[in-house]
């Protein structure tokens, strides 16, 4: 890494990490850990349900990326601020405060799901809490995020819009258009590029001729920063700064969160484009273990407490599954509902 690029990589020092933990407080820090464990448990259960043939269609798992979801969501006011995210979005929805039961029901296509079983794994939205939905189209949410930012500005609130997209999205035309538009109009949007190293099978080094995607920010005259996406506190710090800028009327920021997708792109992926060794190296940087280690070192987490968090998260997912399984299928008589607003 050259010196020039070091400046673009946010480095969280141990001192600053301790300060951040103090600021968060023990209760919130443990909630974050439990949420990360819940996301992992949700997705492992989703994987199991798929293997058992209990679900329909495909799914995109974010196992290994939990710190980015939590770091970003914790840095804004979920339910008041806005979220748009991408197809690998279970973690974002849970981190935003989504209910695992309604998510599981949606995953199983049930009427009680967030989208009444019409959206499925790839399109979960919690509109009532300003989660404007996961998107099946790479970069699909980015132009809408510019519009949400414009709406916030015109309505004169202090909300911000967090839009999460992958590395693949940064090579689309709408990414360019929207970052430019958000920049010229100084919109309160946080563009969070969750770089999990692959656009399906295309590795980032083959799809970009720059080392850091955050460098693209300079083309739009906005700040860009890359952060260790497997470190909850680092993501939290960087996105908090971006949110403060947005709220202060200083416009958008491009954040690149470096992480790694442990599982394949979707269920059909045989993963012939990467080595087991590479996956193992990233698994050694497990975001959940890293945050738990920090909490232990800070004296906030005992082995017993960690076990009880794990048990509670696992039970939460079992309850979610029970709710989903007991829920009704959509009534065929309602098939035409929801196409148009009355």
């Amino acid at each position, binding site marked *: 890494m050259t010196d020039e690029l070091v400046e673009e990589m946010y480095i969280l020092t141990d001192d600053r990490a301790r300060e951040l933990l103090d600021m968060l407080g023990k209760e919130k820090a443990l909630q974050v850990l439990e949420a990360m464990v819940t996301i992992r448990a949700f997705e492992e259960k989703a994987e199991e349900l798929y293997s058992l043939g209990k679900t329909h269609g495909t799914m995109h798992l974010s196992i290994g990326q939990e710190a980015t979801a939590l770091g970003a969501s914790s840095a804004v006011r979920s339910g008041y601020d806005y979220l748009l995210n991408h197809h690998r979005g279970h973690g974002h929805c849970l981190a935003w405060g989504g209910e695992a039961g309604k998510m599981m029901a949606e995953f199983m296509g049930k009427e009680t799901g967030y989208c009444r079983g019409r959206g499925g794994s790839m399109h979960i939205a919690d*509109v009532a809490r300003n989660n*404007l939905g996961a998107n099946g*189209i790479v970069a699909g949410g980015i132009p809408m995020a510019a519009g949400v930012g414009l709406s916030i500005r015109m309505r004169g609130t202090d909300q911000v819009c967090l839009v999460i997209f992958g590395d693949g999205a940064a090579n689309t035309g*709408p990414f360019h258009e929207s970052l430019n*538009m958000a920049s010229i109009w100084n919109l309160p949007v946080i563009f969070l590029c969750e770089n999990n190293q692959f656009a399906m099978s295309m590795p980032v080094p083959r799809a970009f001729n720059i080392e850091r995607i955050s460098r693209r920010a300079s083309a739009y005259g906005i700040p860009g920063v890359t952060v260790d996406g497997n470190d909850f506190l680092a993501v939290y710090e960087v996105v908090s700064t971006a949110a403060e800028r947005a709220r202060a009327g200083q416009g958008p920021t491009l954040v690149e969160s470096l992480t790694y997708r442990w599982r394949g792109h979707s269920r059909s992926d045989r993963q012939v484009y990467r080595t087991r060794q590479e996956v193992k190296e990233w698994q050694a940087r497990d975001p959940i273990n890293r945050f738990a280690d920090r909490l232990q070192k800070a004296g906030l987490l005992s082995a017993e407490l960690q076990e009880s968090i794990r048990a509670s998260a696992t039970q939460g997912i079992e309850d979610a599954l029970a709710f989903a399984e007991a829920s009704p299928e959509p009534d065929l008589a309602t098939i035409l509902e929801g196409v*148009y*607003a009355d």
Partner: protein
Amino acid sequence: MLIETQAQTQSPPVVRTLTYAEALREAMRQAMHSDPSVFLMGEDIGVYGGAFGVTAGLIDEFGPERVRDTPISEATIAGACAGAALTGMHPVGEIQFMDFVTLSMEQLVLQAAKVRFMFGGKASVPMVLRMPAGSGTGAAAQHSESLESLFVHIPGLKVVMPSSPYDAKGLLLSSIYDGNPVIFVEHKLLYKTSGPVPEEMYRVPLSQTNLVRQGGDLTLVATSIMVPRALEAAGVLSQEGIQVEILDPRTLSPLDDHPIIDSVIKTGRALIVHEAPQTGGFGGEVAARIAGSRAFDYLEAPVRRLAGLDIPIPYNRNLERHTVPQVEDIVAEARRLARGEY
């Protein structure tokens, strides 16, 4: 035979004459005066007044925040309208030429049209995207398209095509407050046509086919500029003893087909006229609805279509004119159909 136009019977006693462009502008002005959530965005709509002058002067009245010039970013114009609409605003976007909406397709077809249904009916996208279609300006193949049928095929979108100044204003006001994404297709050659337009903020309901002219011999379904051409043709045919009944769907999707079917039951003959190329065009849908309805038993002749040739719009004046139906073409086709010479 009674010959009377619906527009005359509908209009209040004291009305001014406005052009189609002025009627559209008045609709936008009145909506913006009455509702702060209504705003305009598009390329060159500010001090330039829009490529066809439709928004001329509005920036002086409402300022650059609400009459918002955008960069050349059609995907994000459409997407930002959708994002703003999802979060409490009523955006009215302008795509400079309908041809350019091809650059917006993903945001319209996969986002704006889908989010409500995909999210279980829990979101709405009250946006309008205005765009001028049509040939006759010598602008050749990339600035003359009539692409409405692309959108008619997309559930979740509404497609509106006014043919008169009265309808232009009333339909635009209805579209702004409809609660759904509306593709509002204007015709360049109609901008300077004039007609009675009441001053009040009236609405012409969407999905209400208009009986423009009564006649007992033949049903003529026409859209956009083909409506005034059909009226002119009907005048010629009337002198030959052929009384044409003209219906203007005004909203192509969702289509109100009952008046069309009722008319064909009365006349036994149907001719559908539009500017867009015939193959895959809107006329096919209308023909199929007639043929598949109880009007089938009353048909005395095949259902006929008169539409644009299946070619791109050519530059040369004579070639361009020959590509789309003209008054004399409508007269000839209707005459053949009425006389059984098809």
